[in-house]
């Protein structure tokens, strides 16, 4: 990391903590976000010149609080708003600021946790939750979020404004759910991070096989959640799952940037440190959950099976099929059934796999289902049918890299038709 990158990183990481505290003290996400943004801009301007302060968080807190009070004063100076805003807030004196500076980490952690549950409140749309999580919890710039989701910056900015307005006007609370409420509220939080990771893993638009920057944000958010809720097994499992998946990124494209299937990846290129960390987090999750594995833990176990197999052929398909059975017992999902059928093909041969695939309803529009049928038919020597399935799969593929991959497989199978 260059000194500039390190500085930007410090401002971003500390900035989101300062934001969480300001939201508590001012009760207004919009005001707090603007104030922290302004403080971050001053930091990036003055720190390179004057040196990074000994306590960057305290510096940012004081600066952001001043900006927030300035904004409130400007607001109340406007005659029309005077009545609504009440008397101007007192400017904090030096003593207050010092007390604010030594706010213990535990308080900041609680502030962050409250903000997590507000940003992922089920009364907000999933789109709004994702945007808020990336802007508020990850501290990503609006332009970067807009790029990641392929919408114009103005659209993303409007989405964030609307979300903050709903929080303010509908009085969505800044509060950590009680132990009784937590099981109902946690899935929404985990779902937001999972969705960001899914989008990063297979971007829905554009040419890229993966969005590495967004993948880092997803892992970062999952890591933040484990710091805030260290005793929640599903939180640890989600981090493990994302680490296992992210570890494969270097091997997911070939020299020409084209996608490489898991079966064909050069496993030496996987990120060993990320796999090891994933395994450690999954181990903690198993210990905490005492045998009652949640859906993210099951998925993390599945990812771990692949991450620890030396080769595709070495994969423990028995265990994988067993894990898919457990996932299916929780909720009948055709996509999970599809993945299970692929594992059945590997363990029991293409005839059994094809039968399993044909037993799944509702995947007629899924390129993955057609591709899997194509593979099974090809292995059974039914080349024409296999080619037909791959052609349909290529047509249905939602992303350009996947479409090219399927077209390439079709050509490889049927060289003269290319």
């Amino acid at each position, binding site marked *: 990391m260059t000194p500039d990158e390190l500085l930007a990183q410090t401002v971003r990481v500390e900035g989101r903590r300062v934001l969480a505290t300001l939201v508590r003290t001012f009760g207004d996400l919009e005001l707090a976000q603007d104030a922290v943004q302004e403080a971050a801009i001053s930091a990036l301007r003055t720190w390179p010149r004057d040196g990074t302060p000994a306590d960057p968080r305290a510096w940012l807190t004081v600066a952001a609080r001043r900006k927030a009070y300035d904004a409130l004063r400007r607001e109340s100076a406007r005659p029309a708003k005077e009545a*609504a805003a009440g008397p101007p807030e007192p400017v904090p004196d030096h003593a207050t600021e010092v007390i604010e500076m030594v706010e213990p980490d535990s308080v900041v952690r609680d502030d962050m946790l409250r903000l997590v549950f507000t940003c992922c*409140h089920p*009364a907000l749309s999933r789109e709004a939750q994702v945007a808020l999580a990336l802007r508020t919890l990850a501290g990503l710039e609006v332009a970067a979020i807009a790029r990641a989701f392929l919408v114009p910056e103005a659209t993303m900015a409007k989405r964030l404004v609307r979300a903050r307005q709903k929080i303010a006007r*509908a*009085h*969505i*609370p800044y*509060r950590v759910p009680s132990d009784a409420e937590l099981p109902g509220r946690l899935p929404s939080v985990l779902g937001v991070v999972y969705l960001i990771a899914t989008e990063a893993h297979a971007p829905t638009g554009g040419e890229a096989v993966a969005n590495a920057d967004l993948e880092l944000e997803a892992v970062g958010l999952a890591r933040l959640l484990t710091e805030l809720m260290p005793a929640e097994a599903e939180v640890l499992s989600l981090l493990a799952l994302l680490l296992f998946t992210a570890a494969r990124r270097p091997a997911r494209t070939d020299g020409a940037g084209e996608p490489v299937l898991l079966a064909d990846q050069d496993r030496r290129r996987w990120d060993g440190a990320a796999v090891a960390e994933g395994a450690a987090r999954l181990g903690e999750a198993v210990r905490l959950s005492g045998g009652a594995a949640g859906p993210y833990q099951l998925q993390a176990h599945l990812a771990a099976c692949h991450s620890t197999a030396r080769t595709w052929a070495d994969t423990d398909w028995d265990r994988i099929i067993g894990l898919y059975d457990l996932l299916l017992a929780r909720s009948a999902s055709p996509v999970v059934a599809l993945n299970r059928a692929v594992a059945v093909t590997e363990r029991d041969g293409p005839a059994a796999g094809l039968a399993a695939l044909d037993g799944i309803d509702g995947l007629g529009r899924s390129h993955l289902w057609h591709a899997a049928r194509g593979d099974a038919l090809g292995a059974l020597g039914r080349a024409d049918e296999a080619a037909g399935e791959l052609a349909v799969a290529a047509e249905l593929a939602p992303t350009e890299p996947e479409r090219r991959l399927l077209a390439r497989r079709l050509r490889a199978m049927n060289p003269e038709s290319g």
Partner: protein
Amino acid sequence: MAQYAMLLYYPRDRYWDTPEDAEFSAVYYALKAEAARAGVLRGGEALQPAVTATTITVADGPGGDIQLTDGPYAEAKEVLGGFFLFEFADLDEAVGWAARMPAAWRGKVEIRPLAPQRPLAPQRPPAADEP
């Protein structure tokens, strides 16, 4: 504190004359009494069926031609059957109460915060009713 309207929608017009209606009425009556005791109730009524509705529009601005239509404004799938006004600390509290209304399982409940420019006089219950 914030004020909320809760709009109760049902999949069909309610005439308040079936056994289910009677059962629902009893639940609403009890909820209303409980909300009044808790000091959060600001109002709430059941509506006559939508077939009794009259929709009016005035063409070309104030003083223009009055046009009356029989029935509710739009051919909506759901029918508005009643409403409540409450004052709660936050949306979570509102959700908790809404989830106990029969419309929530028989149809749906829409929770809308009231706009601040339209202050409703807070009607605190008599002191004796307070816990």
